[in-house]
């Protein structure tokens, strides 16, 4: 019973989607899926928020109590959560609100700074590690240089053919590799989904079997 009921729920829930894709009928797609089935999924979201907040608070509180390494930073995480909640619930998120002020003056510059660090790491890695050690590495190096230069206006001044060569690299070898990966992921996803639907794959039920 403990296993059969969850297995039946998963099978029926999954099969509904399969039917929805293959039988485009009004009763199934509109009356059942859109009006009855989908609204149930919204129930997940509030539970997700509660779970997330609880998990964050419990983890950082425990860290502070145990005086774990770098426990002082947990005060910032909890403080950030509290202040953001007060600002959002108290004054909303419209232009001119404290929330928007924090977003434009704190979150935006800090997040952008973190992302911008990538440029420094790329330049450093390009200098220290991007070597033509083998024929494969040389091809990769040349492709990277062509695509990189073709992306910027100065590249056109180097050669007017650079954008065409770059586009060919992106359209042919890049797409071939990407399609191979996507097909592999897709087939793997279908196989795993079928195993779950047919009750062959049961590891999600837990129990260590």
């Amino acid at each position, binding site marked *: 019973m403990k296993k059969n009921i969850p297995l039946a729920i998963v099978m029926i829930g999954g099969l509904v989607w399969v039917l929805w894709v293959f039988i485009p009928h009004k009763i199934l797609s509109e009356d059942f899926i859109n009006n009855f089935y989908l609204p149930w999924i919204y129930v997940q979201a509030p539970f997700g928020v509660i779970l997330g907040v609880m998990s964050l608070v419990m983890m950082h509180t425990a860290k502070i109590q145990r005086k774990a390494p770098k426990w002082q930073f947990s005060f910032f995480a909890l403080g950030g959560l509290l202040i953001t909640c007060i600002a959002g619930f108290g004054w909303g998120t419209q232009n001119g609100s404290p*929330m928007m002020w924090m977003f*434009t003056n704190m979150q935006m510059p800090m997040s952008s700074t973190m992302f911008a660090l990538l440029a420094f790491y790329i330049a450093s890695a390009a200098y220290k590690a991007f070597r033509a050690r083998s024929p494969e590495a040389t091809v990769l190096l040349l492709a990277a240089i062509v695509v990189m230069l073709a992306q910027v206006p100065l590249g056109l001044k180097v050669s007017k053919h650079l954008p065409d060569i770059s586009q060919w690299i992106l359209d042919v070898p890049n797409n071939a590799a990407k399609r191979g990966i996507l097909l592999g992921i897709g087939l793997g996803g279908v196989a795993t989904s079928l195993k779950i639907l047919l009750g062959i794959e049961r590891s999600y039920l837990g129990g260590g079997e």
Partner: protein
Amino acid sequence: MNFFEKLQALDRRYIYIVVALAIIIPLMVQYNSDVVTTPPTENLYQLIDSYAGRSDRAILISFYHDAATMPELYPMEIAILRHCFERKVKVFTMTFYAAGAPIIDFAINTVKEEYPDIQSGVDYCNFGYKIMPMITALGMGDNIATAIDTDAEGRKLANLPIMKDIVNYNEMNLIIETSGSSAGGTWITYARSKFGANVAVGVTAVMAADMYPYLQSGQLIGMLTGLKGAAEYEKLVDVFAAYRDENFPQGRPFSNEILRDPSINKLINITTQTQAVFSPQEYQAFLSKYPEQAVSLDNLKEDKDGQVVFDVTKISAEQQQELGYNAWTALNKKTYNILYKFKTARIGMNAQSIAHIMIFVFILIGNIGYFVTRKKDKKV
């Protein structure tokens, strides 16, 4: 340790300093450079432009990112919003990412400052943060007002004037997902394959390679690739949507011939433009529009090489008042000076040009050092 060995062991901090300077200097010292537009950008521009002035067509921009990827994605969003506001295209915005909600407000408010006639609920509508992408994408295929219910300001969607003639993807026929991931796949899977909606993406440059298969297969009708895509779109908006003359009082349609015409260079200069230049005929036409300001304008003009020239920096506050808001704005517009917020991607591209060249030089020097050292080691 010889020169090449020293090069191999160069401290990272020197590289960081060079990169910082290569980026900061071009950002501060602007120069004009042309960005060649590509078909994925042009296709997206043309589809949006085809909805101009139509009450039964709209686009949806989904902001699926946080502040970290703003430097690349935000200029795209600004350029697309500006295009929509210039050409009166109904635009909806939303996000499935909680941190994306303030970015929508920030983007709309930034563009709206220049378009006082544009109204929320009439010309644009922000759905705000919504959960569950799959359900929302599917629900909108049936009925947008039912799937979304209320907008970010808590107004019932069905009651808003913008919803007149808009029901589902048949009318809101273009979805643009701006993200630093391959999240655009959600729209391809649910909105395109099930309902036939047009889907386009604006992605960070590192994610572009992932989206090329969809672009080549036609599942994406267009794609803006990183800062370059944003710069291309900014240029198209300047050349076509924001262009005004006697024949095209509401902007002009896209044309490859115009893009190749050198005369557009004056429309896309990103350095500060201070001179309004008129041919004698253009000046007469301008005077006929503002006959009461004719004396003031004649006093302010200069004649240079048979052209009538106004240097707007030399016009004092009192003289501006004398001209009146409309004439002064029209004169300013004739300088073709582009506001900073509408050219950030192109300024960024200048910095990126230098940075890319710099990285290329680093790779070259690093490899020269590597080969010389390896040759020496082999000899030993």
